[in-house]
């Protein structure tokens, strides 16, 4: 779903002879892009009366890595946390619009947040291993979900998948707090894989890690996207450029200004989606001047 106010589109619409551009764009998109795993329609997330992010409409593809980038306060973390209903934990948080997951509204009354989180896993900014052994960290999810099958195999498979098995296979009973930060974060990814989710949400998963650990996790993400759909929030633009297939750029804009194109009233600011496109296009030839200013490091 490209940006509607794309200047190219507007020009094309004025030519009567040309085929209807939306239809062409849609056909091309359907041909090239996998089916969407998430489809957001005019999503607004508010804390109390104040919207943190508003008017977000775009979709995220299956077996793709979608990166959400933008300056601090643009609502990208808020947005990713409403994809597995983690925002439910904040009593004042309210989600409006539609968050469709495989065409099912995640916020429909009949949907159970616990079931949603079973299917849509999450890796957090700071590694948050449980104060238990490495083995028990992985086994916790399958146990609470009552998963059948040999727990030893489940643990080994998850750790292998997360490229951690060789480093920890001799100390599975050791406390997870003894691992390095990067290992802890891969443990958290393994923990998430152990419950066999469909989607993995990653909220700045490398912001607390050194470059070598970051590299390992990025390799892992590219490996994992063959089986999973991944959404990642990152402050690191190189990271978005390296790993993601599509990138959504958000910015902070004053209230009552749907595009966020005009001045900056600091009182009522909230996040808006500026554009979403193939990552390569976002970083080389973005449609919006604000995206260009951000990705080239002029602002933000």
């Amino acid at each position: 779903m490209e940006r509607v106010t794309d200047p190219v589109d507007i020009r094309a619409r004025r030519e009567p002879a040309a085929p209807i551009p939306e239809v062409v764009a849609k056909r091309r998109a359907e041909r090239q892009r996998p089916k969407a795993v998430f489809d957001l329609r005019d999503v607004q997330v508010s804390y109390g009366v104040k919207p943190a992010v508003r008017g977000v409409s775009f979709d995220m593809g299956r077996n793709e890595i979608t990166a959400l980038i933008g300056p601090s306060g643009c609502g990208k973390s808020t947005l990713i946390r409403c994809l597995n209903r983690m925002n439910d934990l904040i009593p004042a948080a309210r989600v409006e619009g539609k968050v469709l997951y495989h065409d099912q509204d995640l916020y429909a009354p009949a949907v159970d947040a616990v079931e949603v989180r079973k299917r849509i896993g999450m890796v957090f900014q700071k590694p948050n291993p449980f104060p238990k052994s490495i083995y028990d960290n992985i086994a916790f999810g399958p146990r609470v979900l009552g998963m059948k099958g040999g727990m030893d195999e489940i643990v080994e498979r998850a750790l292998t998948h997360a490229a951690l098995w060789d480093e920890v296979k001799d100390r599975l009973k050791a406390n997870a707090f003894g691992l390095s930060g990067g290992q802890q974060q891969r443990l958290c990814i393994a923990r998430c894989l152990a419950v066999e989710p469909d989607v993995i949400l990653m909220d700045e998963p490398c912001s607390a890690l050194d470059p070598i650990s970051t590299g390992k996790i990025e390799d892992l993400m590219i490996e994992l996207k063959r089986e999973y759909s991944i959404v990642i929030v990152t402050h690191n633009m190189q990271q978005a450029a390296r790993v993601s297939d599509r990138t959504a750029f958000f910015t902070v804009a004053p209230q009552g200004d749907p595009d966020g194109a005009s001045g900056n009233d600091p009182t009522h600011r909230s996040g808006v989606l500026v554009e979403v496109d193939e990552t390569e296009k976002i970083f080389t030839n973005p449609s919006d001047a604000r995206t260009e200013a951000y990705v080239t490091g002029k602002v933000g």
Partner: protein
Amino acid sequence: MSAHGQVVGSAKRSRRAKDLGFRLLLLACIGLSILLLGMLLLDVVGDGAGHLNADFISSFTSISADKAGVQAALWGTIWLMAVCALFIVPVGVATAIYLEEYADSERWYNRLIEVNIQNLAAVPSVVYGILGLAFLVRGPLALGSTILAGGLTLGLLVLPVVIIAGREAIRAVPPSIREGSLALGATQWQTIRRQVLPAAVPGIATGVILALSRAIGETAPLIVVGAATVIAFNPSGLDSDFTALPIQIYDWISRASNDVNNYKPLAAAAILLLMIILVLMNSVAIWLRNRYEQKW
């Protein structure tokens, strides 16, 4: 240069003097309290240490001071603490979990509960004794002056302490642990049962022991509830009459003593016994905290 240096130097000196003076004042305050405590302790040890032996612990109280001991009181205290612990652990922990994990602190009734618990922790213990007498011993439950009524009264008295300590222990478990667990599809109860509570157990256990060590020295509520003073048998069950160490101490001190029948050293010995038990309990609490407390 030199004039400049002198001005700076003298200002520094007066500030240093103030600093030193304040430090000495604080030391004097600590010194005074330790001195007073030390004198009390020495006095008690001097009076009672000679009587603190196996016979003292294994004998019942008697009209003859030579033969009197604390067996009934010691067992009474142990029974009371057991009843008290069995009451405060489930009720206190459940309340702490509710207030920390489920209660919406914006709601007026949750705020009312919170304020009340904090106030209850400061209510004089004799008031709990009256409550126990009216509600447990007589009144609706009519348990009589039994171990059960005494233990429950002490439990009510220290329940706020357990709740407050339990809440602090639960609050010390970082939100990221709950998030990590919920993000795997665990329910809220699974998260509390398998992540939050195990991580909070050392803090809760420490709080329970500290609450019990407050309860073990309480005298006033037990007197009001009707603990017996002269009992020559150990408690046989929850419905048994009882006495307890603080009651025994109170009784011996208030008895008329003379050179032949002097109860004062017995009271001192019982005080020493009570203090030894207290120190042991608090040591366990400190050990638990250091050994199992999770560093996040």
